Every structure is written in C-alpha cells, then in structure tokens.
C-alpha cells in the first residue's frame, strides 16, 4: 500500500519584467545596422576606438564620438557551441558563438554560421555581416 505524498511546497505569485532599453545615444549605430553597416565608435578627443560602441568615452570621459565603419574582416580568437540553451533560446537549434579580432583592432562577440565544423578553429578568417531579424537588425559572423 502506498501512502499519498504530502505536498511540502507552494508557488509564489508569478511576476514578469521586460524592461525598456534606451537606444537614443547609439541611434547612429542602430540605424547603420538597418542600412547594412556596422560601426565602431571613435572618441574625437582621445581617439579610443570602441566596440561595442559607446556614446561616452570611459577613458577620457568626453562625449563626442564619431562613427567608423567596420569593414568586416577578422580572425576567430575563441568560440563555443551552446548545446543547453536558455529559456528564450530554447526553441533554437544548438548555436555557435565566437569572439573575433577585427582588422580595425576591436573585438566582436557574435553568433557564427558554421557550414563545416571542421573549419571552425582559432585563427580562422571570418566576415562580420549585418543580419535582418524580426526583432530588429543585428550582426553575425560567417566563416570565410
């Protein structure tokens, strides 16, 4: 004979957040993506090139960026293939994310399309391209 197990937990009332993220100060960057261009920011005062781009320079504290287009050539520095995905990516197939050093000197972290896993290695040449998506334009790597 089995005895019914007594429930010893209860759930709190659920709560959901999806905070708004401001895009105003980097609007040139986001507009660039829509037009197929990827920009790094360059501080007009101290010359620091930044990616991800910044409106305010963390080196000299000035707030006067210019926009430098990243042509897209780079080399893989490291990568991983994400097998166990987070909740918001649960319906994606496993995906690969890499960090690449771009010709301009900045580094970029992005997803990478990998048609042939044998060619995915540190030092491999990649191209950084923009990508249209329903939720807004983004960017990704392709293996060269």
């Amino acid at each position, binding site marked *: 004979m089995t005895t019914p197990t007594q429930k010893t937990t209860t759930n709190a009332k659920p709560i959901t957040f999806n905070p708004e993220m401001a895009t105003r100060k980097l609007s040139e960057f986001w507009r660039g993506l829509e037009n197929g261009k990827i920009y790094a920011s360059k501080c007009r005062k101290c010359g620091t090139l930044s990616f991800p781009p910044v409106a305010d320079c963390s080196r000299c504290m000035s707030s006067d960026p210019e926009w430098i287009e990243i042509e897209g050539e780079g080399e893989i*520095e490291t*990568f*991983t293939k*994400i*097998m166990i*995905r987070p*909740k918001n990516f*649960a319906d994606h197939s496993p995906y690969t994310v890499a960090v690449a050093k771009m010709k301009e000197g900045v580094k*970029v972290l992005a997803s990478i399309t990998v048609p042939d896993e044998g060619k995915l290695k540190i030092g491999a040449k990649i191209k950084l391209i923009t990508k249209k998506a329903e939720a807004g334009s983004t960017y990704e790597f392709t293996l060269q």
Partner: protein
Amino acid sequence: MVTSVNRVAIVGVGHSKFGDRRDVTLPELGFEATKPAFEDAGLTPRDIDFVSVGISGVWYEDFLPAVVVSEYSGLAGKGLMRCEAACASGSAAVTSAYNMVRTGASKATVAIGIEKMIGVEPLTMMEVIGRAGYYLWEFHNFGMTFPGYYAMHATQHFHRFGTTDKQLAAVAVKSHKYGSMNSNAHFQKPITINDHLTSRVVAWPLKLYDCCPVSDGAAAVILASEDLARSLTDSPVWIDGIGISSDTANMSKRPDYIGLQASVTAAQQAYRMSNITPNQLDIANVHDCFTIAEIMAYEDLGFCEKGKGGPFVEDGQTEMGGKIPVNLDGGLKSKGHPLGATGVSMMVELTRQLRKQAGKRQAAVKNGLALAHNVGGTGHYCYVTVLRS
C-alpha cells in the same frame, strides 16, 4: 573616532547541508548556518553589532531577502547590509563584516552567505545566469550562457597550452572524491574519468561533469575584534589579507581568455597585504564553478606557471599531500554552488582546516596559512582572502 586598525578574527562558523533544499524556506535555511555559528563562537545574536548577507538572486518571492533572513536568525535591529557580487557575494559579505570590525565600528559581526536556486525552473536559471555578462551585447541576440563563457576560456586554453579533456576530468574526479567525504556536500558520490568523458556536452568543449550544480545552501561566519576573539577562543583564525578586483562586463573587451585578470590582481593584493608568497600556503579553496576555472585559478593565483594547470592537477599536486591541496571540501563542483553562500562556505571550510577540525579531509597545516579565491561571474568580480591561524 578611529584610533588604530584592529585585527579581525573568525570566531564562529556554521554551514547548512548544500543540495536540493526545497524542504526549507530561505530564512529557515539561513538559521541552519547561523545557529551553529553562534554556538561555535559562544555568542548569541545579542552580542552582534552588524550583519551582512551575501545573496545574489533576483528570483525570490521576497524583495528584501536579507531582512527576512536576518529577522529569522534573531538579528533584527542590527546594522544590516545586503551584499551582491554575483557568485562572490559571500566574500563581499565577509569583506563588509570584516571592515566594520577592522575600523573599530563593531566588536562582533556576522556574515551570512545564502542562496536558493533549485525552486526556479532550470532553463530560466540558465537564462538568468547567462545574463551575467553584458546583456545587450552578448545575450540579447546571441544567447550566451554561463557555461558558454567558461567554454570560450577552455577553447583558448586548449589551443594555447595543449590542455586536454582528460585534465578537466582530473579536476572533476578530484572534486567528487573529496565531496564524497563531506557530509554537507550536494554530491557525495565519487566519479570516474570515464563518467566525465562520456557526459553530455553543455557548451562545447565543456561537458556536464565540467559544471558545478545549481544548489541551495547557507553558511555563516562570526567575526570579532582581537580583544573579544582572545577572550572567546584559544584558536582564532585571522583574516590576514584581502584582495578585490573586477573586469569588463563585455568579454570582447578583454585581451585574452587564458585566465582571469581579476584573479591575478586580487591575489597579488592579498599576498602583499599578508606579506606571503603562494608557496607558503597550506591549503586553498578556489572558485571551480567549471573545471577549466580551477585550472586557470592554479595559474592565476601562482600555484603553478601559466599554462601548466592541466599537468599540475593530473600529477596530483592539488590532492591532499600534494604541493598545495585544493578544495578538500569538494569545491563548487561537488559540494555545490549556492551563489551567495559559496564565499562564506570557503571561509567555514578553511577555518576548520586551520583549526585542524576537518576530520578525514584534514590537510597538513605547517605555516597556518590558507587562501580563499571567490570569483563572481566570469572574472567580473574577484575576492581573494588569506586566513592565518
């Protein structure tokens, strides 16, 4: 008025069972750590001036979990602070409690580290912790995960130094061996190299047995000024050196992925403050949230040369009786990693080791020096603490 700088001693330690603790509420879990800590110190909550609670989670039903935990342990009315430094929140709490005694503002303080994680659905937890980088540039479009961040380090460490899967497995086997001897550990079962090598890939090249579990648990330490400590015990353990550092939120803004710069910087500060070198340490607890993290920690803390961490563990140098025994409580990997509890748990373990109360897991104590290395995120925060008996 600050007249002099006070030495600070650990005079009481307490530790709950780590693991699936859905049998208790958050404050009930905290009580399992505070009660034995008070008993160990020979003090009561009335003797305490200040409480710091290391807790990282944003998923609790309570918005003020530190207050709920503090009240339940009889500490309402005391100075109170919630400390958050991701997986290093426990060390942040110890640092705050230490500072209050160090400056003379308090005579006796308690640092409580606590977390409950298992009641949250697993892929939601993977999501929350995957946001432990820079959400907008790494998670929003690319879905990075916490194992993924350390996997990127493993990929580069393998490439640069020839570190192998089998060396990662050696870390896991060691952790589970000692975890099996720790009655407070989440996992108390030894594993084999083959169990590791055949486990599923979580974020290539890291497998399931490279990853610490999601756990519930609590730990507490009671700190006292020198005069109070000497009146309470013949075996105070002194907090002798502290180093704290941090790094960029964006992984792409770091120069390389073969170690954590925050660990290097924090360790240098702590060694300088204690005026010691790493080869004087009797024992260490390092932040092995992933096996590759333990290998990088050996190197970043100066236990071995950069790039030699893999052979170092494979040769048994971090076993009991080795050059420096590491994580003889099973580490995060086997003892479990309730985020806010971890840093305090390290202090509990190392205090017991320095008091020679660690039973069959006891390391040889020659110099009376132990080191705790507690990382938050992927080197986003790092706290290194040197204890001296």
